[in-house]
């Protein structure tokens, strides 16, 4: 059982919805990023998604592209992303951390070495955008064998025929992408998303969390109400990019978390 499984089990018992955030590791620099990440649990974040900076984030909009560029310019690497997790774990051994990014930095490090290092750094799971079920042999199967969750994205283009394949080797939770498009581009509509979440939940016992296009406390609440939780990324990353102080960023995150937890 990973910290992710543990967390969702607790939330379920308490009848609470999950609030998940995405931040880019090392944005705008290592120290500021660590300060923000350390403050996430107190702001009400149940699961932390930590972005691995990559030069070519093909599924991301400009907000997260720029965050990756800022982090890389400040010397961020996959190794330092793991270091950030290690530093976080010095004071928090409960909040789940999910790495989110693209396959090349992981492939470049070597899958076996990456999994050993990630596990040791206190990583609980991963979302790798460019690894669909067709490529499960690359990282998904080895990651689960190493005791970490491999969280899959389901999307509006994942039809009923394909859904079982997407769910098959997924663990931890299912991340439903609320829109066709890139991060930070369009707004999620609870009315459209609800039936899709129900469709997925009919086929799995895993929690279904919805992300993409959630940017206000109201939206966070509305989406959490029709799913098992909500993810916010670009709206937070944008404030970090605008130079908001860690305290202001965390206050904004708390308002989003309160929204989700009201649901």
């Amino acid at each position: 059982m990973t910290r992710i499984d543990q967390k969702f089990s607790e939330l379920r018992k308490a009848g609470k919805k999950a609030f998940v955030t995405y931040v880019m590791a090392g944005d705008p620099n290592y120290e500021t990023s660590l300060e923000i990440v350390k403050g996430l649990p107190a702001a009400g974040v149940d699961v932390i998604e930590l972005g691995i900076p990559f030069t070519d984030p093909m599924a991301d909009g400009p907000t997260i592209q720029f965050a990756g560029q800022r982090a890389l310019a400040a010397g961020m690497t996959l190794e330092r992303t793991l270091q950030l997790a290690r530093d976080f774990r010095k004071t928090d051994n409960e909040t789940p951390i999910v790495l989110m990014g693209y396959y090349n930095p992981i492939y470049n490090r070597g899958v076996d070495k990456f999994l050993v290092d990630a596990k040791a750094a206190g990583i609980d799971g991963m979302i790798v955008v460019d690894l669909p079920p067709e490529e499960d042999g690359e990282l998904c199967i080895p990651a689960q064998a190493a005791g970490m969750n491999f969280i899959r994205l389901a999307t509006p283009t994942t039809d009923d025929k394909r859904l079982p394949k997407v769910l098959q080797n997924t663990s931890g939770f299912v991340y439903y992408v609320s829109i066709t498009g890139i991060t930070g581009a369009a707004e999620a509509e609870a009315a459209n998303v609800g039936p899709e979440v129900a469709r997925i939940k009919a086929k799995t016992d895993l929690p279904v969390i919805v992300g993409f296009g959630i940017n206000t406390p109201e939206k966070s609440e509305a989406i959490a109400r029709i799913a098992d939780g909500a993810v916010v990324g670009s709206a937070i990353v944008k404030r970090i990019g605008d130079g908001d102080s860690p305290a202001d960023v965390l206050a904004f995150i708390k308002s989003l978390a309160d929204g989700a937890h009201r649901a």
Partner: protein
Amino acid sequence: MNDLFNSFMSGPDENGRFGKFGGRFVSETLMPLILDLEAEYEKAKTDDSFWAEMDDLWKHYVGRPSPLYFAPRLTGALGGAKIYLKRDELNHTGAHKINNVLGQILLARRMGKTRIIAETGAGQHGVATATVCARFGLKCIVYMGAHDVERQAPNVFRMKLLGAEVISVTSGRGTLKDAMNDALRDWVTNVRDTFYCIGTVAGPHPYPAMVRDFQSIIGKEAKEQLQEQEGRLPDTLIAAIGGGSNAMGLFYPFLDDTDVNIIGVEAGGKGVNAKMEHCASLTGGRPGVLHGNRTYLLQDDDGQILEGFSISAGLDYPGIGPEHSWLHDIGRAQYVSITDKEALEAFQFCCEQEGIIPALEPSHALAHVMKIAPELPKDHIIIMNMCGRGDKDIFTVAKALGIEMNDGD
């Protein structure tokens, strides 16, 4: 018939792999789309009416077959091997790109897609896509790096004349790689009506195989034409490689003719060295995953993708088609690199010797011909793919040679 078990032509496998290269490394949103495309392509491949339409357009719209031309003065001046040029620069739109675009647009029409997107580097693929879209009355959007928009202004104007919308991409360093990222972002947003027309033998399966199949008309024709002219197979094939579609098109029909030497020429930029001022993915890169496939890539120690460098916008890509990576690893093809300086010399030499202004891309291939031909016997036959004409490059070449041109000249 080829023995399938010992053939170099049987790839990719059902997972889109050429050995360990290739694959389908795309987001879930795109996965159903590329599966649809694969199914549609598999149907079309064995449909005589599809190929009949292709043949008709190739003949009457593109101007195929392109000539296989014996280059007497180049041969004489170099003093060794007999040099033949496969004249794909004579195609409508001035390069090999249209061979593939026609095939993909016919597929798009079969799939009921009404909006076509493409990425382009030098602009040749963008012009070809805009052209065929105009021919069939389809909406066309071309993504082009801001840096390339600047250095390939004539092609930008051509695309606009043809009714395409050209979107200047400013992310990254504004070259082909970044244009491809933005095209993928468009596709993931507009999944219902949009067809992504990729210009080279890269991307997720089925693109590398499909684009190769459409470009293979080059090699098929060359094989027949040389048979007519010389009564035999060539000894050596040479083609330039960015993503590698013109090269794959020439090479593929010869892969099982193992006596034929196959040489791909990458862009060496300022030289393949530690400073990475080049685009030679095979000579100076290592395997990684980008744009839907595993292949050789220019990347740093952390797996971050590096920007390539070349005088030729068409070769300025940090990756290469996965089938080339496989041919390189198994040793069936040999890959070398040519610097900007060598390519410029070949460009001028070709103009003077044959009255043909080559594009900077095939000028790289010609530079390698110039290196090896003098040492080869006179009965050795080289076929080089003259995959594009150089009209688009005259401003770049003038600048490199320190010549000022203005509108009044």
